[in-house]
């Protein structure tokens, strides 16, 4: 059920938008003004329609598509050039949309009336036409819960691919299995995916292990976005440590430096801050020095091999690492390093392929477009040469 303070995803066919649920705060989505108050204590996943600036649950109707077999009783030999078929001009349609009291259904009716080709279409394409127009003009949205699954769709669909290094759902899914992330693990993550990987890891560890998030300066800003959307319970994030990547290879020095600062500290807030940093450094040091890292995931905008070289020695033997890159070469470098130093076995470079299908009676085929850019993974298992 939706609660105040949750984030919700508004979904139409090919757009997704995220909003926090705040009471009595009207805002615009597409051309519709609405408040989110009505969503509280309502279920996720249903379609909701905006009426009188409030969202109303739309009862789920059976998917009609599925129950209609294609009837090829008309063909399209007489169909001609597309834009000429619609007698309403672009400007006229825009004007129609601005009318205060016009409903989406009315707009669609006008479009059909003015469509020369509508009656010539096969029944199936008539339906497809209406469905497409409905999705565009009706104020109906699916309200989805932000989960790793829906969020990875959100970033890919909404043209925010670059924010998450093009991380496709299947690639992310493989990162999580090949790294063996689960409860009771110490996981080290270095990512530039707005927190998509970090949040997935936090969810799979679920507070039963430790998650160390390495970033320049230990800043949490670049990974906060998706952690916020996920709205985890506090026990999930209590063992999440944001630590500066640049200190991870000189922990002794860093601890000494912090101790010195602490010794001369006069002001209380400064002392508190340093004490916290010191505790964190000790925690990370304990895991790194005793080689207690169980899973290592690198998916960042930095060249991975020098980072891997520093971090791999903190891993216990027989543990899994996964490195992601949009291109192969940085991973080939990592591969050479691992082979040369014999620090790992079962090293595999892979890419993946994800194809979606339209499944309808008599009309099943792969979707016309596919995302061909799932990136590459380098996976492997650490070994000891003792």
């Amino acid at each position, binding site marked *: 059920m939706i609660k105040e303070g949750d984030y919700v995803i508004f979904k139409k066919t090919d757009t997704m938008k995220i909003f926090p649920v705040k009471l009595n705060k009207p805002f615009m989505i597409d051309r519709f003004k609405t408040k989110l108050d009505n969503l509280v204590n309502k*279920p996720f996943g249903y379609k909701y329609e905006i009426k009188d600036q409030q969202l109303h649950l739309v009862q789920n109707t059976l*998917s009609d598509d*599925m129950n209609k077999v294609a009837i090829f009783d008309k063909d399209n030999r007489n169909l001609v050039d597309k834009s000429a078929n619609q007698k309403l001009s672009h400007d006229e349609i825009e004007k129609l949309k601005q009318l205060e009291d016009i409903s989406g259904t009315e707009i669609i009716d006008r479009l059909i009336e003015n469509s020369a080709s509508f009656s010539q279409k096969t029944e199936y394409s008539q339906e497809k036409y209406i469905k497409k127009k409905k999705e565009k003009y009706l104020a109906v949205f699916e309200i989805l819960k932000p989960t790793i699954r829906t969020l990875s769709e959100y970033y890919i669909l909404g043209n925010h691919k670059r924010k998450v290094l093009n991380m496709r759902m299947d690639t992310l899914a493989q990162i999580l299995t090949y790294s063996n992330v689960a409860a009771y693990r110490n996981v080290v993550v270095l990512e530039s995916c707005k927190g998509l990987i970090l949040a997935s890891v936090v969810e799979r560890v679920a507070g039963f292990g430790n998650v160390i998030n390495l970033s320049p300066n230990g800043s949490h800003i670049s990974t906060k976005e998706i952690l916020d959307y996920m709205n985890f319970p506090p026990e999930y994030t209590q063992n999440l440590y944001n630590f500066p990547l640049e200190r991870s290879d000189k922990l002794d020095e860093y601890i000494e430096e912090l101790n010195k600062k602490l010794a001369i500290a006069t002001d209380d807030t400064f002392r508190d801050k340093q004490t916290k940093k010191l505790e964190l450094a000790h925690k990370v040091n304990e895991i790194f020095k005793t080689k207690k890292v169980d899973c290592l995931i690198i998916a960042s905008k930095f060249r991975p091999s020098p980072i891997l070289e520093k971090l791999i020695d903190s891993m216990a033997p027989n543990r899994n690492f996964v490195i992601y890159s949009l291109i192969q070469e940085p991973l080939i470098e990592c591969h050479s390093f691992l082979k040369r130093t014999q620090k790992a076995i079962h090293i595999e470079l892979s890419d993946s392929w994800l194809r979606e*299908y339209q499944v309808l009676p008599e009309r099943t085929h792969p979707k016309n477009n596919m995302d061909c850019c799932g990136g590459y993974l380098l996976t492997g298992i650490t070994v000891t040469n003792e």
Partner: protein
Amino acid sequence: MSFCKTNDTIKEGDTVIIYFSFNQLQPIKVKRGSNHHTKYGSFKHADLIGKKYGSRIQCTQGTVIVLQGSPEMWTISLPHRTQIIYTPNISVITMQLDLKPGSIVIESGTGSASLSHALIRTIFPTGHLHTFEFHLQRSETARKEFKEHDVSDYVTVYHRDVCSDGFGKEDLADAVFLDLPSPWKAIESAKTAIKREGGRICSFSPCIEQVQKTSLELARLGFVNIFTVESLRRVLSIKKYDLPDFDFNMDWLKYKGNGQENENQNDQIDKNEEKPVPKKIKKNFNESDDSDDEVDGSTDATYTAKPINIQPGHTGFLTFATLLHKDFHKV
């Protein structure tokens, strides 16, 4: 030792994986007093006990590596009793079913329990897997394996025909997974088994006809967001390359042949790949034999990657759908 956890040292009774190379792995159960014979000679089980996982083990004629049993290693080394689901599909299934510690999952059939181990690892220590298999012996073997792998606290095995008798569960599961010849016959019961607040379902089928029937049934029962995908992972091997330059000034007329009889570089790359088992017997686990990769560590060579020639081109279709909160369904 539990397959769900990460472990440091080998103990008696552990199921460990003897690793020879990327496609030669063998699970064994460590038992003091036993000997294990490999192509590198034999070793005593007792020698493993107390050793670190990920160590090299001395056999009479060479060394091998010993790894702990984990879901991914088990999937590539388990004794096949049925077709199994492999890690790339397992990954997508786990993600699309929203699994995490605490999830309650129903699965049928258990088969060789390749998927089951991965599911358990993701949902433990607070979740539970209910796995259904109508083949008596398979269900018993799975139960025995779960015990040996120390994961039985998180899984219950049922011997049952889910198509004719259903799952016998109500408002229990966050997710249901079907790998059955006629999955559509189990969907009505799956719907009953899913929690009141709704959940996710996935069906894996090799044939498109199965997908069509499954999708129709899902739609009929009010599932939404029905979609089907195929997901494949392709492994690339790393190759050194050094193409010869063509000599424009050479008198090719005098040259015997046309200079192409020593296969061109591409052929060479392929040829290298087709000899995964070198003729002379390797005495040691050797990093360079662990894959088709050609890496000698020299830093001035130029490397590239190329897909391994023959790889799975089809495994199965994955159909997913959502069941929305039951209290708001239309009556």
